[in-house]
């Protein structure tokens, strides 16, 4: 394989995952939390594809496609929830939405 070894891709994916998890924990707008979740999912996808290339097996790519489909479903539901919250005049702040807290 030309260019960097798979390990470099894995380190890049790890850094991206860290950035995404920081966004999920730090930001309070549910929209930005969803965007940061997308970064985390894509970092996982990069890892899957890197290992698929490393082992010469396409199953990793198939799994990455399944992750993409699940991410699309998650975005559809998440955005639906955010729009429903906005319509019911609930403040769009994940720190404020704690009605289900025990």
């Amino acid at each position: 394989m030309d260019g960097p070894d798979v390990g470099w891709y894995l380190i890049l994916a790890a850094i991206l995952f860290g950035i995404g998890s920081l966004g999920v924990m730090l930001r309070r707008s549910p929209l930005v939390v969803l965007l940061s979740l997308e970064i985390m999912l894509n970092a996982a996808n990069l890892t899957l594809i890197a290992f698929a290339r490393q082992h010469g097996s396409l199953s990793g790519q198939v799994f990455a496609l399944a992750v993409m489909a699940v991410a699309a479903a998650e975005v559809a539901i998440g955005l639906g929830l955010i729009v429903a919250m906005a319509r019911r005049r609930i403040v769009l702040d994940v720190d404020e939405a704690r009605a289900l807290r025990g």
Partner: protein
Amino acid sequence: MGNVLVWIIWLLAAAGCLATGVAVVSLTNPFYSALALIGNLASLAVLFLLLSAEFLAAAQVLVYAGAVMVMFLFVVAYLGGRADAPWAGGPPLLRTAAVVAAAALLVEVVVVLGLAWGDNLTDPADVSGSFGSPGEVGELFLTDHLLAFEITSIVLLVAAVGGVVLGTTPEKEDAA
């Protein structure tokens, strides 16, 4: 020579990934965050191409950067794109804990990678030119991974129905 070119493309794509990722987390306006995520997905598609995952790179640009992000931008526009300062509000302890937890996660993964570096992460397998082409991926979907393929379709159907249910007007709740 070709090797140097691949390294340059890799470094550009990686720098683009990291810069747009930081931008998504740190920008105040959700609209700009969503735009930065499109850049992030595009540079990831370049990395997918370098890993000879051509079909996935195309799907990434079409499905993610195209369809999903357009949906995001529509919702941000619908909600008015309220500003949300990343470092404002919440107890400072919580913010510090978030940074520490994310850093701990990162350090753990990098340490594990460093420990495994010598064993399995060099000398990739030889693959044919059609590795990652739509034909090969599609064949696997219809043979080895048929069940996962069908379950994916059900997941998407459930998500579509759920989106419609969540999107209907909440008449009863307003009356109550």
